[in-house]
């Protein structure tokens, strides 16, 4: 027990930070503070991954979530303006409150169920192998056992790229169903221009 104490203190500190960050993200009125709360949450989860020896996951968590997703959120917030707070929309408040409390209750119920059955019969803990969580082990898993879904995900990335292009290009090149000859012509020339360049 004693030799695990520092690790446990580390884990619980990270967990406390994660809860703090999650509450901040959920309850702050200012969107930038919300994004920062999310950042705290993501960082503390990365720390927890580290203490579980999942180093690769910890770094991916940092690079993808903290590096890309939070930055993307910040970009959106900056585009909308930092003063863009959520409007005081009272519509559907009851439904939202109902949905939220239903989700909260079921989450609490789930945790209670798991803790209850864990207290009755503790899980067998299998010690991690030497290379657990390393990039090597991860790569071997990804490119050997899970090579089929890895290859399939290329189609997913492809459709996302094509979809983004289709949606972005569509804004300038079409007109409403009303029929707008001017827009039509200018779109034709702009398409031609992009083709030549």
């Amino acid at each position, binding site marked *: 027990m004693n030799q695990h104490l520092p690790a446990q203190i580390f884990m619980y500190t990270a967990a406390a930070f994660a809860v703090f960050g999650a509450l901040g993200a959920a309850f702050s009125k200012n969107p930038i503070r919300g994004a920062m709360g999310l950042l705290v949450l993501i960082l503390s989860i990365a720390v927890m991954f580290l203490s579980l020896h999942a180093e690769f996951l910890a770094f991916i968590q940092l690079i993808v979530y903290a590096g890309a997703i939070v930055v993307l959120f910040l970009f959106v917030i900056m585009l909308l303006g930092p003063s863009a707070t959520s409007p005081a929309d009272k519509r559907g408040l009851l439904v939202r409150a109902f949905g939220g409390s239903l989700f909260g209750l*079921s989450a609490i119920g*789930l945790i209670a*169920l*798991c803790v209850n*059955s864990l207290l009755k*019969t503790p*899980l067998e803990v299998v010690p991690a192998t030497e290379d657990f969580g390393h990039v090597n082990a991860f790569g071997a898993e990804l490119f050997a056992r*899970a090579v*089929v*879904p890895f290859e*399939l*995900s290329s*189609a*997913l990335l*492809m*459709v*996302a790229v*094509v*979809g*983004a*292009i*289709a*949606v972005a*290009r*569509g*804004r300038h*090149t*079409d*007109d*409403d*169903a*009303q*029929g707008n000859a001017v*827009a*039509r012509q200018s779109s034709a020339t702009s398409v031609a221009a992009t083709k030549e360049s």
Partner: protein
Amino acid sequence: MDILIALSPIVAVSVGALLLMLAEAFSKQRSGIALGAAVIQASGAVFAGAVWIYGLDALSGLDVLKPWLIVDRFTLFFDMLICLGGALASLLAGGYLREHRIERGEFYALMLFATIGAMMIASAGDTLTLFIGLETMSIGAYAMTAFRRGSQRSTEAAVKYFLLGSFAAALLLYGFALLYGATGHTDLAGLAASLKGNETQFPQLAVIGMLLVIVGLAFKVSAVPFHAWTPDAYEGAPTPATSYMAVAVKAGAFAMLMRVLFVAFGDERSMSWFAGWPPVVAALAVVTMSVANLIAGRQESVKRMLAYSSIAHAGYLLVGVVCATRGGEALSSVLFYLLTYTVSTIGAFGGLILCGSYGKEAVSYEDLSGLGKRNPAVALPLAFFCMSLAGIPPTAGFFGKWYLIKSAMDGGFHWLAIIALVNSVFGAYYYLRVLVFLYMREPAAGAPVAVPMKSGYVAAALILAAVFVVMLGLSPDSAIDVATKATIAVQ
């Protein structure tokens, strides 16, 4: 080599999609792209048929794909169905997009990738590949919905579809995560084994995971009360995209639903009437049929009516899924129904496309008034396919409903069969209303009327769909035989 043969349908469409994008980028001529997309998807169907005839027993070395992808007759049936729907929808797109001046090659690329996603779902043997396929299909459908960016309605529809679809995907993923937590398996066979052996430490977790998965699946097949996105997305999307969503996306979603429910949750306890999923799905089926038919009867827009009708058809299909828990022919009747629904729905949307032209699109019932007298050749397809959707005897729709209700009666689900029957009678009301407006009404003076378009693509799609509807309506036996063989793998 055997792996390549087994995966040839999906490989054909993937390679075709990449080639089509290259062709679109480098060719000046646009008109062939739609035909190319149709041919590529048709080739996917042909490859699936060829593998079916070649025989899966003759293929060896498929263990490499385990547990990620399953290639069985169920997969091949859905490959054929999805590719057929996709090919017909891309023919419709070839006429519609040009007429409405939004023709850009991305549409066909998106459709092909969505088809690839749907085929991945049909062959998925693991929740991971299932989810990748689902997202590939859904992202293609979201982008196709948003394709007419100049129209606010299309953009709004796409945003609604995207948000609710992502929400559904999140619920589904949450369910998969809980199931993994309970059993330690992500593959469907492993999940089934550990649920059957009851060796999970957290049975409650498994139940909650199963419920979340069912909710996510219900969103994707647009069952009431998870249907809110469907009418808006179907109405706002360009009509070929709508027909694609109503046909191929729905077929993919039902492939997923059947594979998950009958393979992963196929043990006796999960399939029992007291502790499993059948009562949940039965309730969904009853609510879906009744609510969708009631709302569909009150629509003023034909496109929106067809959207609600596709929800109602999802309800009938769910009846078949429930009845299949007692074995029998119910599951093959579901597959056959999907086939008849696919050709009838493509035809109905195609008929609607044919009735309108640029700036004078046929949307509401009023737009169609008197069209049957002014232009009988154009009104005929819409009337014919609406009759098939209503289930009037010489058409495919009749046998689809007949086998579904018959198998429900055989399985002892008399009350479900009666509810489905009452609903299909009520459903005939709003399909026949289209005929009333086409042939018995005159447009009000000065009211805008739809002006028919001319397109070889749309005509080709309609003729092909009509051939299928008539063939399935006159001699359904061979198709039913195929559907029966396809279900053996799942039951």
